[in-house]
Structure formats: C-alpha cells, structure tokens
C-alpha cells in the first residue's frame, strides 16, 4: 500500500514517513525542497527496501500543481492514506500580521492541505483509505502569539470534523510540543515529545477514527486553558 506524506522533509513528517516505510509501505514524499525529499527517499529505500518517490510542491503556491503526485501515484501501489503533518508558523504571527504572511500561514496550514485532500479523496474512498491530519494545542484559545497559525489549524480541525461527519475514515491529532526545529528555537515551558514516538502511535492507530491528543497529557492542559475564566486568561502571557 502507498501513503502520501505531505510535509515530509523533516520533523514529524519525516518520522511518519520512516515509521510507515519501516512497515513495508510505499511512500510518496511531498515537500517544497526536492533535495530533502530525495535524500529521505534514498534513506528509506536503502534502510527498508521500499519504493519511495520524492515530489516537489510548495503549499504556498496557488493553484497547487498535482502533476508530480499524479505521476508518482501511477507508479505506486494503490493509495491507502494521506498524512498531512505540513505546517508553518512565523515569529511575527500576531493580530495585525501583514497580508502576505497571513495568506501564507492560512494557505500552508489550512487551505492547501484541504485542497490536496479534496483532490485525492475519491481515490482514497475507492481504496478504503484513511486521512490523517495534525493540529496544535495552540487552537485551545486565541492568544496574542500565533494568531493566524492557530486560526488556520482550528479551521483544519473543523474541516476534519466535517470529513468524519461525511463518512470519510479520518483521524485528527492535536499535538503538544514536539522536539522539532520549530520548537528548537523557543523557550517552551513543557517537555517536548520525540517525533518518532508520535509517529509510532499514529502508525499503530492508523485505521481508527476520531480526534486525539498527543502526547495525551496535553488534553488536560487544553481543557484547563479552555475553561479558564476570561478575566484570568486575558492576563496570561504565553
């Protein structure tokens, strides 16, 4: 079976590609820099002996160009799943963000994943496939930082709920801090989970439906933040 991993060059996307390939699945790797996906493609083929195709797509572009993915799909086994760990944030992301950055964050975190998903949904349904999306604990409540990012991820979360409601087999993971490069440069108050650990959980539950928090303790943090009275919440700085 073949899995399409969007945002596969590093972090969770790379960990997911490695985990799914290690189980003998064929992989189509999507990222905006072919050098990264070519290197990962070679790595997975040498280590696991599976067929892997690198594909270059920049999610910030509109319209998305599907030609490379379509060509890769022709050369692979039937598509069994689409994984969407792609995402981006920005240090300047706050209310009042300039139009270009607002558009970029909205496209990469919400619009492009949905467009890509819509494109391959009929194929997935034919193969009884699964769609796996990834959100963030930043969506618990709007705050000063990550305004556009949290809004876009909230929209993606809502879209996945609609997908589930329409009968598509799908999962949505709300992720806490991960030890990826996005977190590397930040001074975070909680421990970070290893991407390969998260990827392992996702792989094991790949055919389940529903919404989950990873790592699980983030559910409590998420709920506490949501339940905080406004007069307390608005005084918090994080």
């Amino acid at each position, binding site marked *: 079976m073949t899995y399409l991993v969007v945002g596969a060059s*590093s972090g969770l996307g790379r960990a997911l590609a490695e985990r799914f390939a290690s189980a003998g699945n064929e992989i189509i790797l999507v990222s905006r820099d072919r050098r990264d996906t070519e290197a990962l493609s070679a790595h997975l083929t040498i280590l696991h002996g599976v067929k892997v195709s690198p594909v270059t797509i920049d999610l910030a572009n509109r319209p998305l160009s599907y030609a490379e993915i379509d060509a890769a799909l022709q050369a692979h086994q039937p598509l069994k799943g689409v994984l969407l760990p792609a995402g981006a944030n920005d240090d300047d992301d706050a209310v009042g963000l300039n139009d270009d950055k607002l558009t970029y964050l909205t496209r990469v975190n919400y619009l492009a994943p949905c467009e890509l998903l819509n494109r391959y949904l009929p194929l997935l349904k034919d193969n009884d496939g699964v769609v796996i999306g990834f959100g963030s604990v930043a969506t618990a409540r709007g705050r000063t930082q990550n305004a556009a990012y949290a809004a876009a991820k909230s929209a993606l979360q809502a879209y996945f709920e609609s997908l589930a409601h329409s009968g598509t087999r799908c999962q949505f993971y709300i992720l806490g801090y991960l030890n990826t*490069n996005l977190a590397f440069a930040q001074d975070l108050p909680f421990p970070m989970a290893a991407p390969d650990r998260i990827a392992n959980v996702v792989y094991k539950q790949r055919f389940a439906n529903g919404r989950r928090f990873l790592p699980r303790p983030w559910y409590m943090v998420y709920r506490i933040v949501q339940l905080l009275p406004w007069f307390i919440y608005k005084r918090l700085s994080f």
Partner: protein
Amino acid sequence: MTNALLRQSRFTTFDGTLSLVTDHQRPDRYSHLESLEDNRPRIARGGGYAYSASSFGADSLVQEMTCFNRFLKFDPETLVLTVEAGVRLIDIMTWAIPRHMHLPVLPGYPLVTVGGCVAADVHGKNPFKDGTFADWVKEITLYHPQKGYQVCSAMKLPELFGMTCGGFGMTGIITEVTLQLAKLPAPALAVTGASLHSLQEASRTLLACEADIAYSWHDACPGPGFGKGIMYTGHWAQQHKGAADSLSFKPMTSKSRATLPFSVWNGITARLANKALLLQNDIAKANRATGILKASFPFATNPYFHKLFGKRGLRETQFLVSEANIERCLDGLKELINATGAPTMMISLKRFRGVQQSLSMTGTGILVALDCFRNARTESFMEALDAQILEFNAQPNLSKDSRLPGSIARQTLPGLVEFEQTLYRYDKDRLMRSELSERLGLQ
C-alpha cells in the same frame, strides 16, 4: 528565506574542562543549513564527543548536523556507502552487520557521527592494521557559505579533501561522506586479555602483534603498580556463544557524563579500581568471544569510567611516538609520573601506521593515551608532559587534549604550517571557527 531558528546553548567539551554559551542552530533541511548570512562565523558539530572544543567557540555559531542523518547511496558491488554527516557509527554498523559488512575504523563510542570522525580523523582498535578513518573515506561533500557545495576526493580537489580529513571542520560544513565498507570476516570477535608487567612490555608486544584488534591498558597511578596492565588482542571468530550482537545502552553526553557534582577518582580510588580491573582480568576467561558491536564500542556499556570523573572532568592527552623513540619516551613518562606524584589514572598504547597530513594524528609509531583526574597538580603535570612531547618529537592528538597550547602544536604537528597556508588561501575570511582554531592561531 528560511527562518534561521537559532537559540543560545551551552556547549561543554566531553572532558568537562571547557564550557561556553553561543548561538546554536540544528538545521534539518538544506534551506535551513543555508539560511545564515554568508559572512557569519560558524562551526559544525556532530555528536559532541570531542575532548577539545573543536565544535564550538566564542562568537561562532554552532551548526549541529545531527538531523542530516540519512543514508544516500549504496553500491552492493563495491560496498561503497554514501551517508550524510550526522549519521552515527551505530547506525552504520547496525545496518551493515546483518548485511555482512562493517566499518573497520571505529572509535569507542557509538554515537559519534561520521562527520565528526572525518573532521578529527579518528582511529579504531588497531590503527596499524586498519589505518585511520580518513583511509576509508572516498569522497566528501562540503558546504561553505561563500563557495556553495563542493565535492572533493583524492582525485577531485585533492588538496581540499586532504585538509578536510583531520581538519576539524575548518574547511566547511561536511554534509555528505562516501565510505568504503569492508566485508565482515566473521560474525564475532574473540578478545583475549593478557597480563602485562610494564609499558615497555606492551610496546614490544604491540610491535610484534598481528591481531585484528590490539591495544593495551595500564595502571598509571604513581608507585610500584605503575605500568602493570592488560594486552587486549582480538581475532575474528565464527561463534560467539551467549554474546548476541546487540548493544543496549543509555546515551551519554558531555552533560550526563558530568552529573556527579564531585570526582570519585583520586589517588586511592584510582589505584583500587585499577587493581580490581587487573584482578578481574586474571579471573575471567582468557578468551572472550563477543559481538562486534560490544567489542567496537566498549564505552557504550561501561560509562562509569567517564561518569565518575564528575563535573570537574578529566584531562586526557594522546600522542604518537616513533618506534625509535618509544622505549625512551615510556621510561621518561614513568620517571615523570613517579617523580611528580602525577594524578594519572590509566595509560593505553596502540600501534599506528600511516602518513601524517592536515591536523590529523597519523603516522607510524606507538600512540600513548593518558587519563588524569583533576587536582592541584594536574595542570603542571600536563605542562611537563608537553615538554616530553617536544623532547621525543611526538605528535599530539588535537581532538583529545582540550588545553594543548598552540605553540606546542605548532612545534609538533608536521602538517600544521602547510595546513594554515592552504586554509588561508582557500578561505580568506576564515569563517569556520572554533576554540580549537583560535588556540592554534588559525583565526
């Protein structure tokens, strides 16, 4: 442009004697590696297991290459493997052994990266037979912000290739390394530990030894027990009963090595531990068949030697002495240690064969490795040892000594002057900087 994603991190040498805070980037994709300003001083870092500060320095950004850890190409006919610089030795070995291949030159810790092995031109358990790491490198891809990516080998840009092997990262950021693997002669190693009475006996035994693994360990505490030791020799073996080839260990870093707030090692505990090791070797079976991983990475499963030096750390020095000078050097060393009551704990000897180049400790002779716990006498002893290195025309190992003065290195490393001239010609701005490059006067 990709966000550079930097943070400030504290870096400490593995011996725990030098530490500083500087900018830190951990690129995980090519655009990220290229995201810094072209004129920003930087230095690459691998696993962080060098005893000297060759992978960090004041006002130099550290580019940690551990996320560049993919296997890129493999030719099963020629056993040539291309990997990214951040691939660790354990990754190669756990992949290669089931495919009946191995990398013959392996330093003692499995999490050392391939890029680090090239930069320090490390050695393994028998440099006389296997050479140093550079002898197994066929091609290197380097990134320099002002020159882009350059591929070098013995045939293509040979000068750059020669400078990069043992160049401690001063020629650029190593991104890819092509290695020549070897066919695995057998699935296990049979290691023998024979008792030794002196360093001289070890040196003579090494000069006559033709084993696949050959090195000695000695009690270096001053006094009557000085020099007693064990000669470890190993041969490939077809069977290793009860010694499955797997390695289970908890990773040790410069930080976790220094967890203890004090050093357990002192004159008394070092003597006791050494005597216990000698006794254990006498009692244990003479011929111990073991898995390749365990034999290759002895410090993975036994981290206590390093950890018990605690936060205060240790001093290690290594130097290569010619076969003609080794007996006199060992006599001088014994005299110096006994006369000064030096805080020395252990000495190890290995035989080398090769030709010195760049800043690498290579050549023909006997390597003397010496570990000290740190007390009031340590620094003066190390200075006295520097004088011996000069006297016996020995060649120091820059990756193992975090305090070796640049003046001593200049007098003892034959390739340093040529390295300096070529380096300045290649990189006028000298962008790749570390504490080591500063200490050597290569800024």
